[in-house]
């Protein structure tokens, strides 16, 4: 994506009834899954390109909807367990069916999404409605044949991985061996085998023996895209630990430790809070990791632990507003970040339904807005600008006018093309770069 050209136009837009809590493309980009606060998963499928309707290339339409998680009540602890879907991760496709993992705070489920477009007809013992026939009326035998039917997409839960997390699950990550995956909560990370639901290995445990000494929690975790023994996890203190599962069964001692020294000039009571990492993502190449804290996005080289190689300011104008943002709890918002397919552009969300893209090569960046008013079909998105002080130019928006209830926490980028999905509260926007 040449984001300097700022050619992005609006592809499709879906309105949801519930707040979207996660967005994820599958490995081919053909499917886009969203999870919402009501425990539902909605999967969109990209339309096949047809020669007749060239202009309709690549629109996403609803493919399947199912209720993944239900609200539960933990009677032992007198606590509600929210059904909100925290994360969805796709498995690579190995047959005609699609598989995805979805998780709420406590339980991970493996869903199989499959199509059915034929059905057998001509049973001997049942009639067309499925009622049993009186054997006395059967005079001939026939072989049932498969006849086409209207396409039906059905989702079935194939595995339920429950009861392994005391704290709230914040991340799941499928391993590159496609046999295992990990789930991370605030204090522990567990390793699962897809086939086994009644056991999981605990690979990271940072819970102190004395909970009074707890000062740091796990905020995100991810497997390396190619090395099935390597994973990283981030903490609320702004550190990233890379662990190698070959070293020991319990990876409490990290292999690498990434932390940037604090800038003493910027120190305040909020320094620790804004340094808390909300998301960590490996690049597709596996060479870099990207982390998102409250005000910045940082790119780290796995070979250099003492500082990131790139730092991008997402909304530095909020630095002077941290007190107010602490008061209204916005400072605890967890923004996600994504790479594009070639690892050349990174994207993350902000407030006022703004999202930002940074081109790593040209060092240019752009701010765009996901809003209904600005999203006529095929309309090109206009870059937005936040005015920090002084005279506000036309079309600029001042910091005090930002709507902090409209935040873009979840975004996704197509694995190979320049198609992005942006979740703005309860709306999903899909944008694409301009063709030709």
């Amino acid at each position, binding site marked *: 994506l040449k984001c300097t050209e700022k050619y992005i136009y609006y592809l499709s837009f879906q309105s949801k009834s519930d707040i979207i809590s996660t967005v994820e493309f599958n490995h081919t980009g053909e499917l886009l899954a969203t999870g919402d606060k009501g425990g539902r998963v909605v999967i969109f499928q990209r339309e096949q390109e047809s020669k007749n309707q060239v202009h309709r290339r690549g629109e996403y339409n609803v493919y399947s909807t199912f209720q993944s998680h239900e609200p*539960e009540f933990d*009677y032992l602890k007198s606590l509600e367990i929210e059904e909100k879907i925290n994360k969805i991760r796709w498995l690579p496709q190995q047959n005609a069916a699609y598989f995805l993992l979805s998780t709420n705070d406590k339980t991970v489920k493996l869903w199989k999404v499959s199509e059915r477009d034929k059905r057998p007809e001509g049973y001997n013992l049942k009639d067309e409605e499925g009622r049993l026939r009186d054997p006395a009326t059967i005079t001939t035998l026939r072989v049932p044949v498969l006849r086409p039917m209207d396409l039906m997409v059905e989702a079935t839960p194939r595995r339920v991985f429950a009861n*392994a997390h005391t704290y709230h699950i914040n991340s799941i990550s499928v391993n590159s061996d496609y046999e295992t995956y990990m789930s991370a909560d605030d204090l522990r990370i567990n390793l699962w085998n897809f086939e086994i639901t009644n056991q999981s290995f605990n690979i990271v445990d940072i819970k102190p023996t004395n*909970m009074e000494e707890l000062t740091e929690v796990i905020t995100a975790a991810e497997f390396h895209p190619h090395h099935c023994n390597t994973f990283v996890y981030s903490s609320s203190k702004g550190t990233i630990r890379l662990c190698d599962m070959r070293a020991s069964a319990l990876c409490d001692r990290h292999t690498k430790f990434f932390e940037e020294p604090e800038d003493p000039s910027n120190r305040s*009571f909020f320094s620790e809070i804004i340094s808390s990492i909300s998301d960590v993502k490996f690049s597709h190449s596996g060479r870099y990791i990207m982390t998102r804290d409250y005000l910045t996005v940082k790119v780290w080289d796995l070979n250099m632990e003492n500082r990131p190689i790139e730092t991008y300011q997402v909304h530095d104008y909020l630095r002077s507003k941290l*007190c*107010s943002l602490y008061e209204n709890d916005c400072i605890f918002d967890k923004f996600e970040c994504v790479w594009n397919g070639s690892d050349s552009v990174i994207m993350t969300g902000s407030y006022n339904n703004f999202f930002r893209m940074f081109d790593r090569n040209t060092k240019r960046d752009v701010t765009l807005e996901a809003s209904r008013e600005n999203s006529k079909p095929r309309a090109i998105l206009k870059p937005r600008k936040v005015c920090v002080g002084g005279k506000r130019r036309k079309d600029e928006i001042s910091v005090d006018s930002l709507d902090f*209830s409209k935040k873009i926490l979840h975004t996704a980028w197509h694995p190979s093309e320049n198609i992005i999905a942006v979740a703005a509260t309860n709306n999903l926007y899909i944008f694409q770069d301009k063709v030709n």
Partner: protein
Amino acid sequence: MPRPRGFEQEAPPPAREWPISGRSARRAQRRPFVDAEWRSLAPPRAVGRSSLSGGKLAAAAVAVAEQRTRRAASRVRIVVTKAPTACWNRGSPLPRFSCGLRVGRTGRRDPDNRSLKDTMFARGLKRKCVGHEEDVEGALAGLKTVSSYSLQRQSLLDMSLVKLQLCHMLVEPNLCRSVLIANTVRQIQEEMTQDGTWRAVAPQAAERAPLDRLVSTEILCRAAWGQEGAHPAPGLGDGHTQGPVSDLCPVTSAQAPRHPQSSAWEMDGPRENRGSFHKSLDQIFETLETKNPSCMEELFSDVDSPYYDLDTVLTGMMGGARSGPCEGLEGLAPATPAPSSSCKSDLGELDHVVEILVET
């Protein structure tokens, strides 16, 4: 060898359900005080303001499961301010956090006589000053010597402690958020200890490292772990004189470890800073939690005007520049030279609330 992680058998959780039945005007007045405090400091996120006239909730567990959405909304209702505060979630500008003016009230103290606990929160200060006219002048003198940085720091500490108290009341507190707030509180406490603005404790306690006196995360975030204590203590029968103050201001109990000598915690001794704090929190919860299930319903019923006034007054604490509540709020401060008539009624209101709490 796989280590399956099942249920962690930690301490049984406190029952935080407030099933609704019955009706009592006095209980309605008791609850809103504390809620109003939260109201002003923690506006809801991305939830529209729903009316307070919710229906009755069924009893505990069933209600929670069935009415989950409504409970969430109810929880939000508790913190929704009736007064039109700066509703940032409707696109209005960021609430201007006025560190100076509001905090000035809590920062006013006579450095020699006034203990930190008394001045930490406005409500505590006010209550303490009711009937202590001579202290007012001393506090006024102390005001001028407090720098704005420490005022801001103080208000940040106040706010953080209230946020932590709020997470006691939530069903599923966010552990990350609780830990971050607790760390912030600790950071402020450390700095204040180094500054010497932290009120000195008994000499024997001074030998220990300052960290020992810092409130631990566990104590700060009792419910965040979901398992630990805060089982309501059997009663408030300790006979401490500062009952009303500590009951009404749960966050003031955070000061308890610093003042092992104060009468409320004396029985525990300086060694038991954390223990006393634990107990004090239990006592707070005991007070806050109604034994009569009618309390919850009162929150959602249409409340009468005195409650509203109280709320308006208290939301003026942290809100934007609204002149009405601000004036009332100024009137509440003991050092205000010319309190308006409205704040006299507000003072009367609070006395009434104190009375209610003491009675139960």
